[in-house]
């Protein structure tokens, strides 16, 4: 491991990742802790990055009011207002 050569690599190799994407609205970056952005991660938890904002907002709202059954999402959704959910859903739609 040579530091200087690694610096050179660092200067050219920018890897994009939805998990860490820029300008995520408050709370949005945390979603990928459970909802995988990496296709290699084997999980039954639904992929949400790239889904339509309308679908995400509908699901979050339904989790929050209890009309959509789930495990942890109801309790997480209760931590977000409508005004906070909207930009998160719009941002998620833009992610690959």
């Amino acid at each position: 491991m040579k530091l200087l050569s690694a610096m050179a690599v660092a200067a050219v190799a920018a890897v994009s990742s939805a998990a860490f994407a820029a300008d995520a609205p408050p709370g949005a970056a945390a979603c990928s802790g459970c909802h995988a952005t990496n296709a290699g991660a084997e999980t039954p938890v639904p992929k949400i990055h790239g889904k339509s904002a309308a679908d995400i907002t509908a699901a979050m709202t339904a989790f929050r009011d209890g009309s959509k059954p789930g495990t942890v999402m109801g309790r997480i959704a209760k931590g977000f207002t409508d005004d906070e959910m909207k930009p998160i859903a719009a941002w998620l739609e833009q992610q690959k």
Partner: protein
Amino acid sequence: MARQTRRNFLKHSSALAAAALFPTPALTQAAPRVVVVGGGFGGASVARALRVLDPKINVTLVEASATFTACPFSNAVIGGLRDLKAQQFTYNKVRAAGVNVVIGTATGINTQGKTVRFVDATLPYDRLVLAPGIDIRWDGLPGYNEAASAKMPHAWRAGEQTTLLRKQLEDMEDGGLVVMAAPANPFRCPPGPYERASLIAHYLKTKKPKSKLIVLDAKDQFSKQRLFQNAWQELYPDHLEWVSLSKGGKVTAVDAATMTLTTDFGKHTPKVANVIPPQRAGRIAELAGVTNNTGWCPINATTFESSQVPGIHVVGDATIAGGMPKSAFTANSQAKVCAAAVVKLLAGQAPATPKLINTCYSLVAPDYGIEVAGVYHPVNNVLTEIPGSGGTSPVDAPKDVRETEAIYAEAWFRTITSEVFG
């Protein structure tokens, strides 16, 4: 962070010395330099997030061990359900993401000159992020020191200690007594001792049915308590006994030579002793001057910048983070917020007020999972749980919900390790 060989260190530190003496102007003048010390869930996430948020930033991750061994799910290794290899990750993908990974041990921080010191080298930074995790307080429990931990493992930093505790359980004859000492708050992974107690009880029930585990606790309350205790009553009535602080559970001294744990109410001499001792922020935090008299690090709840030393940020278990527990999910969540704040601060802009999430799964048995979740935001500079949100799995959930959450627990581990190390 595990120890490294001297040869390895010299190899890397000479490269560091060269970098400090002969900086490449095109790189060092143009690009802001962020150094991250500690390559766990917090540190590796900060490093990767910085590279994605602003590829112009020169990011160096300093970590003592070439292989990371994850703590989440290491209780399943102790319980014989999982191989330690399933816990281990390299930094190859972190390097491929454009992070300069240096395997070496930082020996100090020059906060005035803004450099990270090594034995014979220095590494300059514009902003520093410390993600040092925990250190054991070797002065925190009379009789418990590094030598004692070879006989009475803590297994609270995953690796050799994890394997040692598992082997002691495997070598024990059926009928042998196991005792765990659980610490007072705060400590890494609040539900961790109780998940471990569950999976040790599961091992005893299935492999050593005449044996029993006694948990001696320095607390009366603990994380997901009702869920754990209900499950213990259902699954392990003959194999697990929990002794609370008020029932005399606090271990006040240990003697490794005689395998004795002493409480105010008596002495225990088990065949296997798992002593989870008091903890503090990893050593480099103290050397940097970012710890207070608690041994942990006060931070700004919006930027994760140290309240004590400007220009140094702290994330993960080492922080005093209000309502957020010391967990891998928390560290990852904080890392993303911290990275975004560092990018803004380097650009002379104001960081946004963040929102953070934590989710912690615990296994009570291989097919029985429970969790606690929380959503947090800064209130008067303290990370505070949003009222009405968060909480644990329902106390009265049917079996299929527990099975689903056990599946989600493993899926969470695959997902987060894939994001951070994959």
